[in-house]
């Protein structure tokens, strides 16, 4: 276990907790989305950090893929949010308690 790994793990845990807190506490759907992105990236950071000793760098390649997937996910989520806002005139998650109208 290197120092990098230790601090990296701390950083990713901090990121995860921040993301989780934002996702749970914030009421605006966009912030929730940001929180989710943070959680995703925290997990991604772990992949990158723990693959430093791996000569094949499989973890870091997976990290790049995940960033791509994360971008797609964010785009899709934002599109959904746009439609939801159109529908409900609100982006507050408290108001989004109905799937059907």
């Amino acid at each position, binding site marked *: 276990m290197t120092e990098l790994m230790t601090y990296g793990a701390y950083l990713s845990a901090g990121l995860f907790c921040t993301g989780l807190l934002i*996702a*749970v506490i914030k009421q605006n759907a966009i912030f929730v989305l940001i929180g989710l992105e943070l959680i995703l990236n925290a997990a991604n950071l772990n992949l990158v950090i723990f693959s430093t000793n791996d000569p094949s760098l499989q973890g870091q390649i997976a990290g790049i893929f995940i960033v791509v997937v994360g971008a797609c996910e964010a785009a899709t989520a934002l599109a959904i949010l746009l439609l939801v806002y159109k529908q409900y005139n609100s982006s507050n998650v408290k108001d*989004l308690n109905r799937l059907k109208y």
Partner: protein
Amino acid sequence: MSVQVIILLVFPLLGAFVSFFTRPAKYSFIGTALSMLVVAIYTVCLLGTDFQERIDFEWIPSVNVGWHLDRLALLLIALVATISLLVHIFSITYMEKDEARHRYFAFLGFFCFSMIGLLVADHLILVFVFWELVGFSSYLLIGFWWQQEENAFAARYAFITNRIADVALFSGILWMIQGIGIGSLSQLQSASELPLVVSLLLVIGAFGKSAQGPFFTWLPRAMAGPTPVSALIHAATMVAAGVYLLIRLSPVLAADVQLIVAIIGGLTALIAAISALTSYDIKGVLAYSTISQLGYMVMGVGTGAPEASFFHLWTHAFFKAGLFLSVGAVIHYMHYIGHHKLAQDMRAMGGIRKQLPIVFYGYTICMLALAGLPFFTGFLSKEAIILQTIVWAQDYQIGFLLPFVALLTAFLTAFYMFRQWLYVFFGQYRGEHLAYHFIEEAPLKIPVILLAVGSIFFWYTWNPIGRDFAFLGYAIGEYPMNGAYGWLTPVSILLAVGGAAFGYYRYHGLKDQKESVEVIRDEFDRSRKGILSLSFNAFFVDWFYTRVLSVAFIAFCKRLFIFDKKWIDGFINAVGVFTVLVSKAADLIDKILVDGIVNLLAGLQVWIGNMIRLFHASRVQLHFFWAVILLVLVVIGFEIF
């Protein structure tokens, strides 16, 4: 049920039904009259072939009831049917103005059915059933003109008086069946003497129907019914049912009770004869004379000569029905000339023999028979009974009083019958309306003539003062006609003639118009006060019943009512209030305790539900939160275990 019994019972009932539904009402007599004709002819045929039968059938398990047809029953059925037929014929004219004739004839037919049922019934329960039916049809017919209050009252009066006696009769019958094990009349011949109380109860029942002793007051009141009804029911047949029962029971009555029967019969005969002396009601005189003659019959049973009683019953039926029908013709005439108010008051009559000659002769013959003059049937049968009382009197110390009473009654009978005869038929017409000519229609004449012919001696014996009656021998067996006491025949003839002569002497003034006013006024004054007021008010028995007994009873009932209202109602109300209070308390307990527990449980459920609901409220973030918590828990769990 044999064919014979069915025919005898079904025909009158059928006739009654047919009469009730016959329209127009003018022809409603046909049904019952025809049925009576059939029954009369059929019974005579049965008598001719000497038919005798007894049928038993199981009514309820271990209780057999039955019918019987013996000579006594058949003879009486023949009597009922014959007289009923004549009464029906008479009623055609008598009831011609009445709108409800179909009801009248239906009731008559129903009465005949009940009476024949009473005569063919062998078991005492059946006898009692028909006994009550007879009483009921009598009630219907007395109250036939119920539109007038006094007629309805008379019907109720008769009905209630009979019911009081019937309570005794019914308890006697039950006692006899249950306690002694005898239920059938035909078993009585071989039975031993009944206990005192049972005989007394049965005898009281018979007294009620035959208007004897304390029960005699209902019969004069029963005259409220139509006169042919009085002829059939309250003179010839129904009132004889009590005597019939006594005749049937006579072999087994306790000796003491027989003594009572004899005494009551004698007393009633005398009291009724005295009451008839001052009556102005043309039917009232005949009613009292009926009671008096029934007293003779009862006396005959009590002194041990039921055969003589039966003979007197038989002859009496003819001449009494004849008298009533003649009187009915007179009343019909009074109504015909417009005298509705005083149609039955003898003071308003007089000289009617000129208007109703045939009826006059019929009445005269029947009257002579009732007065007990020789050459007529009444003499023969009355003589038989008086003879028996003399024989009976030998066994008792003051027994001679009974024949004395019987002879005195015979004297009085002749007296009051001549009084009525003179009042109604002689002198000048005393009413307000003009008397004018009246055609005696055939239905009025024929029954009277036939009954008058039936009251002449030669039907029973060729010797007008003889004492051997083949009739009696045929009906009930040999009758030991006593040849002794030959002095009785002249004495009784003398008394009857004496009574008649005294009556004639006393009332011959009625023949003259001026004198008749004085005679009537004199008699009226005298009957108001002194010893004669006893006669005028029938010894105040009826007065006692209606003015003292019933008034006292009603007062007693009112007291009971007040007691009821105050104490029993009060108690019940208190119980009610108490119940309401208890219910209110129970209600409170229910509301607070029971409902409280239930509500508490329900509230708990709601609270728990609400708490649980908080975990999965419809909020995305919350779900997410719990999912994370669970994940953490799972991870921690993995770490620990």
